[in-house]
């Protein structure tokens, strides 16, 4: 009796969240969002490899808060959210890149910038008298609102980022692993790291508009963090990371379509689950001994 009662309550509860009627029509309506999600998954997955290798997770968070400030200011001043968030991101990324060459300096600079950006953003939103959903969206994402011009600007920026990353791939990898040795071999370490910061700033700016500034870590850090649990190959890790990013983004949007909840919880949950699975797989691999090391080496180690 009680059991059936609970079941009915549960049923109501779940059906109020999930409703996959007219799913096909919705899918067409949200075509732009799905394309945007897929592109963002690819770019996020790719750049997250370097975010991890350069230990920049905290920087991503810092840049996203200043991007939020920029977007809010853009909203308030009527300049546009996209433009505002781009300016905010790039300023933050360059500041962190120029002032925070050493990891210790970097963390303190980010910690100083981040609350300032967040506060500035909140101020702008408080002064803004337009629709409230616009405000909330900057923090938690608003994938439904991807219109054609916005999709186009997203595609252009993402293409720039991908080309930039592919061109600077090897020097960036070298400089991220061993900056001194890379410099000795003629890699312009300073320039490479500034270029990376600009690319990261661009990526954060587009991500903030889609998934919101509070959640960018889920697509700019988690995919590579997960991939690195199961592989260390410089070829496999980026490919896996991109696959994870696309899965989280597109999967999250697809599920969100049939529900009354915003997309971000789905994206972050899928992203998190992928990470958990990778950790478990990675732990198993470690127990059995990593591939690539022959038994003889284990003895002499």
């Amino acid at each position, binding site marked *: 009796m009680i059991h059936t009662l609970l079941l009915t309550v549960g049923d109501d509860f779940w059906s109020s969240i999930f409703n996959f009627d007219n799913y096909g029509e919705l899918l067409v309506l949200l075509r732009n969002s799905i394309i945007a999600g897929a592109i963002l998954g690819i770019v996020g997955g790719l750049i997250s*490899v370097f975010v991890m290798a350069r230990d920049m997770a905290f920087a991503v968070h810092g840049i996203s808060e200043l991007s939020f400030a920029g977007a809010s200011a853009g909203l308030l001043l009527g300049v546009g959210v996209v433009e505002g968030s781009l300016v905010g991101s790039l300023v933050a990324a360059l500041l962190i890149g120029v002032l925070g060459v050493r990891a210790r300096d970097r963390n303190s600079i980010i910690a100083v910038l981040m609350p300032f950006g967040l506060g500035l953003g909140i101020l702008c939103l408080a002064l803004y008298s337009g629709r409230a959903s616009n405000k909330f969206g900057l923090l938690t994402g608003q994938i439904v609102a991807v219109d054609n011009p916005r999709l186009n600007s997203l595609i252009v920026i993402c293409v720039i980022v991908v080309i930039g990353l592919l061109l600077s791939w*090897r020097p960036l990898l070298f400089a991220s692993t061993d900056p*001194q040795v890379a410099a*000795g*071999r003629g890699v312009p370490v300073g320039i490479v790291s500034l270029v990376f910061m600009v690319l990261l700033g661009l990526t954060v700016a587009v991500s903030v508009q889609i998934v919101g500034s509070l959640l960018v870590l889920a697509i700019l850090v988690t995919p590579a963090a997960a991939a690195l649990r199961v*592989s260390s190959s410089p070829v496999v890790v980026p490919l896996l990371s991109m696959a994870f990013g696309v899965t989280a983004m597109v999967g999250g949007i697809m599920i969100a379509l049939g529900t009354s909840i915003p997309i971000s919880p789905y994206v972050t949950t899928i992203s998190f689950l992928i990470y958990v699975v990778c950790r478990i797989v990675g732990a198993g691999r470690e127990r059995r001994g*990593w591939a690539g090391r022959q038994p*003889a080496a284990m003895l002499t*180690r």
Partner: protein
Amino acid sequence: MTSTRSLLLWVADSPASAAQGPTGDTTPAGPVLSVEGAGIQFGERSLWGDLSFGITPGEFVAVLGANGSGKTTLLKAILGQQPLSHGQIRFLGEPVHHGNRLIGYVPQQKLADAATPLRARDLVALGVDGHRWGIPLPSRSRRQKVDDILTDIGAMSYANAPLSILSGGEQQRLRVGQALAGDPRLVLCDEPLLSLDLSHQRSISELINNQRNARGFGVLFVTHDINPILGMVDRVLYLAGGQFRMGTPDEVFQTSVLTELYGSEVEVFRSNGRVIVVGATDADHHHHPTEGEP
């Protein structure tokens, strides 16, 4: 003081260099590296001045000195990353410049963490073409080159293992391999043995020594402890208080020489073929007598 210096000073131009690499390199070419009256000043403070020495092909030179005596700055100057206040440094007869790929560089041991998307072979591959733009395209010659180096440095058995699970000694072995990848004529080592245990200290220094014998490159090896490489070095450059002494280990590691260099009482002991320097400011803890025997 002047007499000691002129005795020990090995000037690049003087061809009567006593120290010749054990390879007995027959290349008639001059020194791979010649430092000519070089000096670096930061404001009022002179790090070192009038530094002159050369390294012939296949020669192993150790650089010792107190903390802050400018050992690492010397390496940076040779790499063209630190401008000199006066004098000049020539590599293969040309003034040094930034990013010369014929100079290999082995850094201090820095453990790679799990966030590094590299396997052992990938670290070596960065030494082959890590400075080039773009993504690496699969190429048989690149792979062959990396395999050859991995074989040379005895790292083939863990070639495909993630860098982050390898021990400090194994990672350092790979960094030596990375430095070899550019077919260097000179290899600079910046405290490569730091934080390695004694057996790895020995195996890494032997690796560097064997490779310089096989390939005939010069070695400039910055270290705070001469003992792991004592049997290998041809000459020692000792920096302290803006001055320097250079000569064979027997010439430099003498109580009178180091006392004069430091300007304070320093004692040099020898026991079981090990050299122990006691009382050197800033450097005493490096040469602490309790340092373990292998």
